[in-house]
């Protein structure tokens, strides 16, 4: 086996590294002697709550500990000022005395995430992360209702993305795991550039739950962020459509941009809901019913507009300021 020698040397390296890392632990006073059937565990004295400290944990879990200094949760360890129930391994997994006494085993860990129910995982994480404004709606979010909780999207020990500890290297890959329809939409010819890396799902969405949308009737959409805390998310980038305008196209304020556009992707140009402009417009501007600002139908097009004449089939050729205008009530300039 030509590779055996390097492997042995590599093993030695790991062993030496492990010993080097464990050396400080050896300096810590040990607790009562464990059963003598195997080598003794290096532990610190358990506090009244049964907390043994991260030093004890790393004795058996060097693989987790070795890289933990890169983990955002390491801050609580580095701080050295946090109470035992809020720092290191036991900050998330609970007091480890029973686990140490039993010489391992998942069932002896108070908070073993692979054995916990989704709501327990949620509550455990929220014990520290609940008070951020961005998570204010997490308990009523669509994700929580579907039992999609923190550990479904975040990986604390095996994250491929250092920022936010995502469970996938790129945010989109994480979202696509469940949102196959949106994945298909982002593969369409006209789309927001999510796959290209310019736009991320979280630019528009808050996966932790959003406040009631301030457009439409607030029932849906349910996971959409708000620009300036209370305006439709689209205007974060499309500032020229934001207004306020003297002559608002009421549809954009009342029902939002989605009245005419498909935000993820579309087979139609400009993310429009229909391939032809005039069909987008005529579906509302038909003069019938009790709709619109005067509740007597959305304005019917002029009798001068002969739809058989191609010039009237591209409505936005004349109505260029269709998102709102300061200079013309018909959006002509």
């Amino acid at each position: 086996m030509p590779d055996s020698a390097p492997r042995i040397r590599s093993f030695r390296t790991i062993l030496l590294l492990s010993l080097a890392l464990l050396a400080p632990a050896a300096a810590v006073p040990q607790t009562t002697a464990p059963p003598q059937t195997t080598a003794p565990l290096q532990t610190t004295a358990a506090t009244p709550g049964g907390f043994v400290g991260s030093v004890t944990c790393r004795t058996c879990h060097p693989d987790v500990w070795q890289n933990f200094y890169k983990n955002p949760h390491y801050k609580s360890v580095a701080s050295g000022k946090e109470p035992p129930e809020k720092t290191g391994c036991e900050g998330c997994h609970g007091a480890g005395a029973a686990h140490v006494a039993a010489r391992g085993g998942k069932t002896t860990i108070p908070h073993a995430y692979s054995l916990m129910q989704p709501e327990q995982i949620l509550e455990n994480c929220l014990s520290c992360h609940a008070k951020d404004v961005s998570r204010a709606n997490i308990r009523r979010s669509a994700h929580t209702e579907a039992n999609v909780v923190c550990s479904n999207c975040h990986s604390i020990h095996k994250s491929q993305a250092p920022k936010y500890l995502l469970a996938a290297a790129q945010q989109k890959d994480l979202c696509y795991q469940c949102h196959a329809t949106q994945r298909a939409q982002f593969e369409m010819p006209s789309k927001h550039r999510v796959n290209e890396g310019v736009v991320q799902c979280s630019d528009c969405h808050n996966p932790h739950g959003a406040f009631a949308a301030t457009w439409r009737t607030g029932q849906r959409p349910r996971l959409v962020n708000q620009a300036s805390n209370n305006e439709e998310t689209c205007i974060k980038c499309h500032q020229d459509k934001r207004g306020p305008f003297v002559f608002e196209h009421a549809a954009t304020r009342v029902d939002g941009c989605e009245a005419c556009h498909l935000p993820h992707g579309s087979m139609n140009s400009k993310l429009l809901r229909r391939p032809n402009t005039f069909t987008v417009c005529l579906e509302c501007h038909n003069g019938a019913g009790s709709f619109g600002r005067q509740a007597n139908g959305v304005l019917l097009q002029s009798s001068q507009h002969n739809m058989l004449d191609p010039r009237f089939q591209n409505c936005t050729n004349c109505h260029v300021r269709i998102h709102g205008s300061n200079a013309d009530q018909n959006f002509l300039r």
Partner: protein
Amino acid sequence: MRRYLLFSLILPLLAVAQDTIAPTTGETVGPPRGVNHGDYNVIQQWETGYRYSLVGGDVGKYRSDVNFRNGIRLLNSSLSANSRDGHGKYFDEIVLNTQGLGNDPYESAMLRVQKNRLYRYDMQWRLNDYFNPGLATAGGLHFANLQQRWQDHELVMFPQSKIKLRGGYSRHKEDGPALTTINLFDNLRGDIFNLFSNVKREFNAYRIGADVDALGFRLTVLRTWEFYKEDTPYSLGAPPSGVNTTGAGTLTSFNRAAPIHGSTPAWLVALSTERKHFAFNGRFTNSAGRRNFIQNESAIGTGLSGAANRLVITYGDARRPVTTGDVNLTFFATNRITITNNTSLDNRRMDGNSVYQQFDFASLTFVTYNFQFLGIRRIINSTDVHVRATKKVDLFGGYRFSNREIRSIQSVADPLTPFSNELTTQQNTVHAGIAGVNWTIHSALRLHLEAELGRNDNPFYPISERNYHTLDARLQYRKRSLTASTGYKQNYNNNSVSLANYSTHSRNYFGNFSWAARSWISLDTGYSRLHLDSAGGIQFFAGAPRATLSQGTSVYISNIHAANLGVRLVLKKADIYAGYNITRDTGDGRPGRLTTGTLDALFYNAQTYPLSFQTPMLRLTLPVTARLKWNAGFQYYGYHEEFGLNFGLQNYHAATGYTSLLWAF
């Protein structure tokens, strides 16, 4: 040893799927790697190479959809430096990732620098080359070749303390050449003229705030100032005749100056607490959007009635104050029952001062208009209950109520005339209920079912939701490295009143399969079908020789099939990835378009838009040394419309690819 080290260095990089078009990988927190410098561990990865593209067919459409061009790029880079003891002198972590720098149409950079307990700084910079020929919406007259750049900076001081201070700055700039149109000299029968504009838009936002933790509460206060300005100049090239061949207009001189400058100061105040039996959080926001504008436009030419000389002066301001309040109360009734109630209030008013004066020097007449007021007030209340019936089954349900009042004042004539304003107030109320179940059938198999039923008594638009329901079903199997899921989603809406019936049926189906069978082979595949059909009653004017009021039905049918397949092989001396994506809209299955020019053809041709878009790709990675890899990728783009729209086909095909070297330290 060398080979083993090489493999151990390369393996984490290969574990991340590279895209041909976006080779950014991101750093892994997996096995330790990198170099220790003092108290820091440093990892670097730089990928630079040449990207090429060969495009045939409609280049404008290609640039609108894909836009990759030739040239040398820093395709991807990442740098991270971590303090090994969490007590660095100036910082404890630096993370820098970049993508596409050099000249890619999509570029980005992300930086995070932080020192535990003292500060955290995040920066994001992005660039998007936006190209759109505007063919489908304006027959090519609304062309845009813009560059959009965003940057966001966020600094948090004392991020782990009970009092956090935060400040931020965001900037968005958009500029570049564009074409637009102007209708002159008769609003209804005038001709269309092409205008050149040099787009200049700029947005700046400043934020400052604090989080205070005290007595079990967290209080967040954030003050924001946003500024926007648009100074796009418009000009006329050579004096043109109108775009429409049947139009009688000419334009010999045109000038427009239309600067818009605005600001939006905003407040956010939030309060939250978590207790044993309840959680509370509330939010109050107020923003006062305002934009000042002036437009001076002069046009000289000929219209329907001969010589035309028109001057338009508009000036004033528009305001939109928005006030929003939200309160969430969660009760943990028992260990198994959670009840959450949300109440939201939103109030926005759009008004302002403006004068619109249009002078016609030929007839010595002028017209004046005032602003239009639009006010929207909404009250929303929702209650959600989540019950964990057993360890494997939990149920949830909710009721949502929304009441919205829309108030409108519009000038119907010269505002100087008494009683010229039309004031309208209308309300609509939505009652909606949701219910669902999560069932863990087996430790690896989960089922999610959800339904929503809603009733809106007075929707604002014909296409708004009125009588609607949604269904959502998902089944997922996940065990170790295998994930399989399938689902169905349905959204039906029926919005019918006299003369206008509108109904839409959306049905989505999907299936995914992902399996890392061995350490050296993985497979990812999926299929989605998105069906949409809608039918709406419409009225319009059409006919020859004179247009008359006609009634008809606008029908649209879309059947989109989307499939993706990716296979990755991590061999001893090579990493190979092959993938294929296809999106195909089969429409309603018709063979082609009708000859245009008749009313039947007009709407028949707008009912469906079958096309396909496919992108096969192949990537190869070969290790050269322990720290060096050679990459090559190829991706083909094929866009094919079955029978196009009125202006013809926009089909294109493009072969793109790159070759690069990646250094990893």
